[in-house]
């Protein structure tokens, strides 16, 4: 069951953004709010400013592997004032995996968004440093997409040269 503070936040959110809150689900005490893609930044800003969700605990991607709205980005928010946790989700289609960046709201979103880009290829518009974070920069694939093989694509990442380079030795 959602707590009373979670319910209060949900009621207020539904009243303010009636058209953009698409779905609310609950699982073992956590509440998930699915928000339409074009209003994600206003909703997140509102949650931070009105309900004091000042802590972005996590931001991650999901590959649902569906024909419609294949990718999902989840924002795990914590309100340090009330101790409430809220998951805000939004979905992007495979042919245009683009979302506005949340760095303007929580600057800690920077590396999380780079990770989501690295693993799923979802681009964050307005990101100041949209590079890969884990994989080599010339890597051509997105490893957490479902079609990517577990052991990778042979030869896609370079191994060191086994003939010593005179400049390095």
């Amino acid at each position, binding site marked *: 069951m959602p707590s009373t503070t979670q319910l209060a936040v949900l009621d207020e959110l539904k009243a303010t953004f009636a058209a953009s809150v698409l779905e609310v689900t609950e699982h073992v005490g956590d509440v998930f709010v699915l928000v339409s893609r074009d209003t994600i930044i206003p909703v997140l800003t509102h949650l931070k400013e009105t309900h004091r969700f000042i802590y972005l605990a996590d931001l991650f991607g999901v590959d649902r592997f569906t024909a419609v709205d294949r990718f999902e980005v989840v924002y795990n928010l914590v309100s340090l004032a009330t101790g409430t946790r809220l998951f805000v989700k939004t979905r992007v289609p495979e042919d245009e995996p683009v979302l506005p960046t949340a760095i303007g709201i929580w600057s800690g979103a920077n590396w999380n968004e780079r990770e989501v880009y690295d693993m799923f290829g979802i681009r964050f518009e307005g990101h100041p440093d949209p590079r890969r974070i884990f994989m080599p920069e010339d890597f051509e694939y997105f490893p957490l997409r479902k079609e990517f*093989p577990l052991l*990778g694509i042979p030869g896609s*990442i370079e*191994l*060191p040269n*086994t003939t010593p380079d005179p400049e390095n*030795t």
Partner: protein
Amino acid sequence: MSFEQALNKQGFLTTSVDALVNWGRSNAVWPMPMGLACCAIEMMAFAGPKYDASRFGSEVFRFSPRQSDLMIVAGWCTYKMSHAVRRIWDQMPDPKWCIAMGACASTGGMHRSYGVVQGIDNFLPVDVYVSGCPPRPETLIHALMQIQDKIRQHPTITLDA
């Protein structure tokens, strides 16, 4: 009195240069600790007082590749890290040896994944593979003794000449 008896009486002994050089080399194998994951903790225990690698002349962990003879790759190695490991290996002076410590360094182990090199022998010439996850310090000592055996059997001078 034979010539050899005469030498012994004076406090001399005869041996081959190979045996002498290999005796020195095998009892002063200074490791380059390439601690990449949890195996490095066991590697530290190997050097510490309880297991005491100094009994074998290998207590001096050198963090400079220029001063080391043996690279102990302890832990899983990613493709990104492999370039740094290989570069340090190239900077070590000859003769040098390599131990792949643990399942991950030997085969990739449980890290059956796109980012992890499935065995460091893809880019390093490994002399001894150590099984275990992580191996106990005794196992690493055994690997060191295997390296010592290998050094002692190596015809150093005849090969160079």
